[in-house]
């Protein structure tokens, strides 16, 4: 929103009682963008919770929420209102001060990320020049909130959940930062807009297809981001079947909402970072960076491209949650320290070597990117083929057992 503030300052800056009011304009623009982002985060978190419950219902062959509003769309509003009116309990032995401030840390860590998350060309709250580094550091506030909440409750379940969560998030921060380092190497920029500008609109100009190493780095990022966001298969801190509700066992009412609000908004954050760093962001094919701000049509097209990519990743994350079983704690730590961390070191060294040997803009660089893209595309095609293969077997068995068709039209919501 820097451009907007700059524009307003040039045209509408007036002096009040002899004082220059330019700073006021910047402050108002910053507050307005913060309000817009808060609105977006709450709307997204609410709708994501609805979509998640509907997809869960469908995967588990049940209905899911469908009463409040059309197809149950306003279920999250009803839930939010109900939880605001719930009694707010603080356990007897708890550290009252730390118990109360823990949700603030979680929420600030979530909303703070939206400062540098771009939505399109020039559509970003502030194009900070240390953007991606800032994201890594500000998300650490969430861990502080979770540890405080788990420890201050003075409940054994909360304590276990908080400790596990701390160990998990802290461990997975290493492969996450290392895989983002690969992107920083490639783009030569730390700002989110700079990283997107260094990529291209066409798939083989994205960083994910730069080399096999960058391709692996994307998956390392994705797995670590799942663990950072406490998503299944890494939802050990709040594993219902073993830890009751983990660090938020003793929280009720709106304080409880804050933790889950942050978790669902985090869904957007992790997917958006994946799109920014690896999947080309808002870049429109055949349009250069300079032209991408030339007209509103192109900016909105970029916005739509960004949204579609991010929401596709969000749906993948939600589906993963309802298909994969939970890992055991020692398996999870082994995966991080013995596979992902060495893997991301190899990715960094490999990408460095690749960059020194092969120029991004040269013909051979382009050819190799297309080859990597084709390989990845074939992998995806094989994946879809296997899904279809399994589906056919299920369908035949279902027909044999019940005599009915298993086909359920996807356009009809359950």
């Amino acid at each position, binding site marked *: 929103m820097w451009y907007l503030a700059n524009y307003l300052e040039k045209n509408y800056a007036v002096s009040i009682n002899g004082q220059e009011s330019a700073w006021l304009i910047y402050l108002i623009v910053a507050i307005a963008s913060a309000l817009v982002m808060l609105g977006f985060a709450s709307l997204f978190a609410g709708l994501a919770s609805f979509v998640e419950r509907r997809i869960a219902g469908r995967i588990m062959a049940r209905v899911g929420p469908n009463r409040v509003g059309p197809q149950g769309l306003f279920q999250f509003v009803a839930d939010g209102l109900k939880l605001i*009116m*719930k009694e*707010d309990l603080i*356990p007897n032995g708890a550290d009252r001060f730390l118990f109360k401030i823990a949700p603030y840390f979680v929420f600030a860590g979530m909303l*703070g990320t939206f400062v540098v998350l771009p939505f399109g060309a020039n559509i970003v709250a502030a194009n900070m020049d240390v953007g991606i580094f800032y994201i890594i550091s500000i998300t650490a506030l969430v861990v502080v909130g979770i540890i405080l909440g788990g420890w201050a409750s003075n409940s054994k379940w909360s304590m276990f959940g908080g400790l596990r969560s701390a160990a998990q998030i802290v461990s997975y921060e290493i492969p996450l930062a290392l895989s983002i380092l690969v992107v920083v190497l490639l783009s030569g920029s730390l700002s989110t807009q700079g990283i997107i500008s260094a990529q291209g609109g066409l798939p083989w100009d994205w960083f994910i297809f730069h080399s096999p190493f960058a391709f692996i780095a994307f998956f390392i990022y994705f797995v670590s981001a799942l663990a950072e966001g406490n998503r299944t298969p890494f939802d050990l801190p709040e594993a219902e079947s073993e830890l009751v509700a983990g660090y938020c066992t003793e929280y009720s009412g709106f304080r409880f909402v804050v933790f889950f609000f942050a978790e669902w908004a985090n869904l957007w954050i992790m997917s958006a970072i994946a799109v920014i760093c690896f999947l080309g962001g808002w870049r429109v094919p055949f349009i250069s960076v300079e032209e991408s701000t030339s007209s509103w049509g192109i900016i909105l097209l970029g916005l739509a491209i960004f949204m579609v990519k991010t929401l596709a990743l969000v749906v993948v994350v939600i589906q993963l949650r309802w298909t994969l079983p939970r890992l055991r704690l020692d398996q999870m730590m082994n995966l991080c320290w013995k596979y992902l961390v060495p893997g991301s070191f190899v990715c960094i060294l490999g990408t460095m070597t690749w960059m020194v040997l092969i120029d991004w803009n040269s013909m051979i660089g382009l050819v190799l990117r297309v080859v990597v893209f084709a390989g990845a595309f074939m992998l995806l095609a094989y994946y879809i083929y296997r899904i279809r293969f399994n589906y056919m077997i299920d369908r035949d068995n279902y027909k044999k057992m019940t005599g009915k068709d298993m086909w359920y039209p996807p356009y009809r919501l359950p």
Partner: protein
Amino acid sequence: MTEYGFSFVSVIVFLSLAALFVFAVLLLGRFLRPSRSSQEKRSVYECGERPIGDAWFNFNPRFYIIALIFVIFDVEISFTFPVAKVFSSWIKQGHAGLAYAELATFIVILLLGFIYVWKKGDLDWLKKFDHDVN
């Protein structure tokens, strides 16, 4: 105001708005929600039984070791970020060999530390003792 300054004004505004939002909704809820607390309601959940003792007990030191390893690695990685940022521009200026050697040396030293920690067994979540050879 510079763009640099504006971005940090935005950070402060975002963080204070986050705190304000949570505080405002909790304040609003104060007038709406009931407040009929009792001793039973305020006891912590321990599977329906009366809670036994505090939860503030000694816990396994392996959490501490993991946190220590994390701090070392995270500091090293944050030192690597600025070097990684200028890496591609150094290649463009023709200093590819120097940039590569510098960054690779740094990362290899980091890797050596990692191998040391691994060999020492600090990355094993379940510690193996001499008597429980599987």
